[in-house]
């Protein structure tokens, strides 16, 4: 099947994984060998002990995304996969940004931080560390502005997502999988 990059969209996908040694490695190895275009991912604990939650963004057409989900389901340790792109969901990312400042530019940076409802979590004579949480587009815009000062160090967590309202639980894999087909 040929793929036209002009039809590609970014999809936000959540996968619930058994929290066992090597599981993340299996997922990453799958992404690499199946040539899926993964833009970012983040993984951590879920509400259920023994289940970790992976959020990732894949860039591709519908068929490619369908393949990514189906291939993930073939991993024995993957419990459930959900594409939340079209669903009402909140997406948030965190960034820590070290900005070079002097006495003159410090207030400017603090003002920007204020506008973006970010916070300053470390201060030294010649730098500030900004903590920002928000939708990644909002982080992009803040980072763009701060880069004028300039930024000397930065880390972004990659977005995590959760559907709005009374959705999801990592529950019945079989049922969820049928839905994904």
């Amino acid at each position, binding site marked *: 099947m*040929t793929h036209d990059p002009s039809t590609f969209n970014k999809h936000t996908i959540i996968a619930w994984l058994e929290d066992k040694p*090597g599981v993340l490695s299996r997922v990453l190895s799958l992404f690499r*060998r199946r040539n899926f275009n993964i833009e970012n991912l983040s993984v951590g604990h879920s509400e259920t002990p023994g289940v970790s939650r992976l959020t990732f963004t894949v860039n591709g057409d519908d068929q490619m995304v*369908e393949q990514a989900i189906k291939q993930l*389901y073939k*991993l024995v340790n*993957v*419990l459930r996969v959900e594409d939340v792109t079209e669903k009402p969901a909140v997406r948030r990312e965190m960034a820590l940004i070290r900005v070079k400042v002097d006495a003159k530019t410090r207030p400017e940076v603090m003002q920007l931080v204020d506008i973006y409802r970010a916070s300053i979590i470390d201060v030294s004579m010649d730098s500030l560390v900004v903590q920002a949480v928000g939708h990644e587009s909002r982080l992009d815009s803040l980072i763009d502005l701060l880069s004028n000062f300039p930024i000397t160090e930065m880390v972004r967590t990659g977005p995590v997502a959760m559907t709005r309202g009374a959705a999801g639980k990592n529950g019945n894999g079989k049922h969820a999988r*049928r839905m994904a087909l």
Partner: protein
Amino acid sequence: MKRTGAQIVWEALIREGVTTVFGHPGGAILPVYDAMPQYPVRHILARHEQGAGHMADGYARVTGDVGVALATSGPAATNLVTALATAMMDSVPIVAITGQVPTTLLGNDAFQETDVTGVTQAVTKHNYLVTDIDDLARIMKEAFHIARTGRPGPVLVDICKDVLNDETEFAYPEEVDLPGYHPYFGLDEQAVEAAAELINNAHRPVIIAGHGVQMAHAENELRELAERAHIPVAMTLLGLGDIPETHPLSLGMCGMHGEARANKAIQESDVLIGIGMRFDDRVTGDLDAFAPNAKIIHIEFDPAEINKNVPADVAVLGDAKEALQALMGKVKPAQHKNWMAQIEEWNRESQELDILNAEVDELIPPMVMRELWHVTEGDAIVVSDVGQHQMWEAQYFLHERPRQLLTSGGLGTMGYALPAAIGAHYAAPDETVWAVVGDGGFQMTIQELGVLMQERVPVKIAIINNGFLGMVRQWQELFYEKNYAGTPIQSPDYVKLAEAYGIPARRVTDRKDVTAALREAQEHDGPFLIEFQVKEEVNVYPMVAPGEAIDNLLRRRIVQGPSGLQPAW
């Protein structure tokens, strides 16, 4: 009852019905070998771990159940990788058990240490590293369950040596608890309905039947449906035997070296029904030009295969047997006389181009394959290697039933045939097993002749020796201006070699000696080797060049000679 880790391995194997294992001992797996004599299991010593893996594969393909390979850590485990990848691509259930360095040395670059679960991640359905004896029984149970259920595949269990020596209270679990593994889906009645509707309205229907039909034991259902709705059946390489190739509705193999009638029928079809197959690139050729006017029905067990290569108009997710049974009740009897007449016309053209119908004096491989079919009366298990001979076998041996042809279709592993044939013998000791090999592939696993010698395994070997890595040479001839770089290959004196292993052998250089040699081998009680020194530069036709539409066929040129039609070599 207290058991050591090594004993637990055997207790599990026995409970899973294992009677034969293929392996090669070494340091880290030694405790398992030490315990082996306590259990009623036959061990076949491979000469290389790849051979052990292919033997387990051949055993599994014939029985339809799990084949078991044993190996030690490090180089032994890495030697298994090719066999695991072969089994993975062709959905063959294998459980491979490897020894690993003691837990205290893990990650330490210890002697014969390799990160085996890391290395085999991409070529197994699942794998395990066992570092605690209390996990071992559960993991063995899960390994067999995963290997044989759903879409089957290889599972590797890597066990640290200290775990094998530890002792624990042994209890084999009755059930598995795998919350992320749900390989079975109920049949979607609506999809079956939609498929039946398409079939009932088809004028030029074609079935492509694959390996999945054999794995589901759905050959009878397939034939009944094809006969009822009068649908011709093309087969993938691994699907050969899904319907007898002598059946009037059989189109034979389709794809890169498929029958012209099969490829043309697929291209002209209005409804194309893929059953237990995955629209591999060797089947479809140029995807954009594949079956351009057909509605596609895809009956498939693995959801990830649906819409992977060819988008399905109707996807029936499920077991081929169950799906075909459900379809039978909804599909109306039909006759497609014009369609079958058109196919017969294509077939007539093919017959004129068939090298077996031309005047040929030389010894050529297609003739050997057809003679093999005659001599065995079509009743043998044939294990082919990879290359030209594999395609000639597929074309000229008329497969009658499932699990009759074993070959590495997906991975294309040269060296597969001899060890897989050994495995096939242990799975079906009453059947005649023929390994059909080229001079290239045979030299990749030739050391397994040692198993024939030691165990007197009555496998018959037909070497098609054309002095080249033939299929690669064919590509060089057609696409690289006959630049035969790296493809001429010398062979040892196979007859002497066989004698050195105590295996009777014949060399055939003349057409008139083919039948007698095959018959002698067939009737000989024990292993037998025949080297056919065939005409060197013969191509496999028809051929679809890679990336071309499957009806854009390269054909053999047949010209008028002094005494009749002859191939223009």
